[in-house]
């Protein structure tokens, strides 16, 4: 009961969420329901990720929170402030130093390591919703491993547009079994989920659902055997701030001008420090 009062959630809530997490980790990519609690943050603003973070966080943890790669955005700051107000844990913007990283829509550029936990905020947990509205049917399709309807979408896009039109939330197959929604990360981040040393947890507060990818698990985008999976590329582009190439960029339009900056602000800062030192 030493937990009581720590990290906002009461002991029962934490127990329930941890139990669901254990199940999620045991069945990589499988959607597990949980009794999503009311949070002092509006639903749809990361309450699923927040509850996961609060149920696993310990006093010695070091927390990083990002929104689309940025530590300094209002949403990231609000969530970080809330978590520190109920835990007093240390925070950092340094990916390498964090033990828990709560994120919306990005995976940090810096390679993740063992004993790190990446907590994704998920708006739509069920990957089959686009092709099958009936929830009982969705369950059956997961049980049968029947993802042919998702494949048909891929077939239709390839026939009519030459490639998949999905730009984010690209369906991935986990551990050669369940197909899941990776949350709205760009395609650039999809290959980085594969065989990742960190534990990846996914929480959808509004939908009361969670799922997980244990460390070193196979994660493959759904793609035809005779087609390449194409990630976003930015030919010739380098970051206006730090000069980095071959990372994921935010495009800023100023009038007719397009300007590019690292989407991962901590990576950008670190790169600038390096440049200054040199």
């Amino acid at each position, binding site marked *: 009961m030493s937990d009581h009062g720590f990290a906002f959630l009461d002991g029962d809530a934490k127990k329930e969420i941890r139990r669901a997490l254990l199940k999620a980790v045991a069945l990589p990519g499988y959607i597990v329901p949980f009794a999503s609690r009311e949070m002092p943050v509006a639903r749809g603003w990361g309450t699923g990720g927040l509850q996961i973070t609060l149920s696993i966080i310990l006093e010695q943890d070091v927390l990083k929170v990002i929104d689309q790669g940025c530590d300094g955005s209002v949403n990231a700051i609000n969530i970080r402030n809330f978590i520190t107000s109920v835990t007093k844990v240390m925070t950092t913007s340094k990916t390498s130093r964090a033990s828990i990283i709560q994120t919306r829509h990005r995976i940090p550029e810096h390679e993740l390591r063992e004993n790190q936990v990446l907590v994704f905020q998920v708006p739509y947990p069920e990957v089959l919703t686009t*092709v099958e509205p009936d929830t009982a049917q969705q369950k059956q399709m997961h*049980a*049968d491993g*029947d993802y*042919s*309807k998702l*494949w*048909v979408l891929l*077939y*239709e896009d*390839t*026939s*009519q547009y030459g490639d998949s039109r999905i730009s984010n939330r690209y369906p991935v197959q986990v551990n050669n079994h369940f197909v899941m929604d990776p949350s709205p990360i760009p395609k650039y981040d999809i290959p980085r989920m594969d065989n990742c040393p960190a534990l990846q947890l996914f929480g959808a507060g509004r939908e009361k659902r969670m799922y997980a990818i244990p460390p070193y698990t196979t994660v493959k985008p759904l793609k*035809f*055997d*005779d*087609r390449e999976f194409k990630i976003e590329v930015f030919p010739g582009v380098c970051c206006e701030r730090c000069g980095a190439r071959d990372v994921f960029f935010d495009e800023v339009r100023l009038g007719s001008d397009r300007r590019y900056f690292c989407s991962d602000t901590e990576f950008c800062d670190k790169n600038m420090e390096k440049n200054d030192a040199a």
Partner: protein
Amino acid sequence: MLLDVRNVSKIYGTSCDQCLSLTGVEHDRAICPECGSVVAVNSISLSARKNEILGIVGESGSGKSTLLQLIYQDIRASSGEIFFQGVTDKNGQPSNILHEPPSAVSRLRSKEMSMIYQNPRLGLNFLFSAGGNIAERIIGAGERRYDEIRSNALDYIRRIEMETSRIDDYPEEFSGGQQQRIQIAKALSSSPQLLLLDEPTTGLDVSVQAKILDLIKELQQDMGFSMIIVSHDLGVINHLTDITVVMKHGTLVEYGLTDQILEDPQHPYTQLLVSSIL
């Protein structure tokens, strides 16, 4: 033997131990007088060999559609056994598919058996293009190469004598007869061993009906699958089938070579049916 149906029944309602013995053609009713259940299919046995074409005739409500759905595993039999070539237990002995795990049944349905429904909305996904519908079945049978899927889909569009340029059009944009052709292309694209057809031409213009029946016959001769076709129309049965099954009140009234049954019907009910059309 490709398909062996033994003593299969389907009872809708609470059912009692008298349901089967108090209904059927000899009692001139399908509703159990003891418990009021509807005995849609009553103790039917039949079989189909490779390349064989069976026809099922009978009045409205006699259980024809129910019998097809029982074979296709759209619904579960109340009792009986169904054997399908290749479905065996660990000792290699034929295994009742009603006791097989869902994965085996799902494989039968996605590859070895196909169903063509009277209503194209049951057989086609109206959210997918014609090609997408065909692709769904090819993918369901295990193909994961786009070029292979596309060229197969085009091949089946050709086989149903449709312009290949229409492959990416959606079902709404086709006539009723064309929708039935697309259902046929979809059903055959997994190279099934058994094709089940539930009044595939009812509701279409007579001239369109004849063309589709000819197409089915040609495809059957080309590809060599077995077929069970339900029809109200003894003309269709005569034109298409080797074996005829006559049903009334859920029971099998007559079962034998089509030529013999049409020339020399034994049961008074069949005599009545035959005399009314000749």
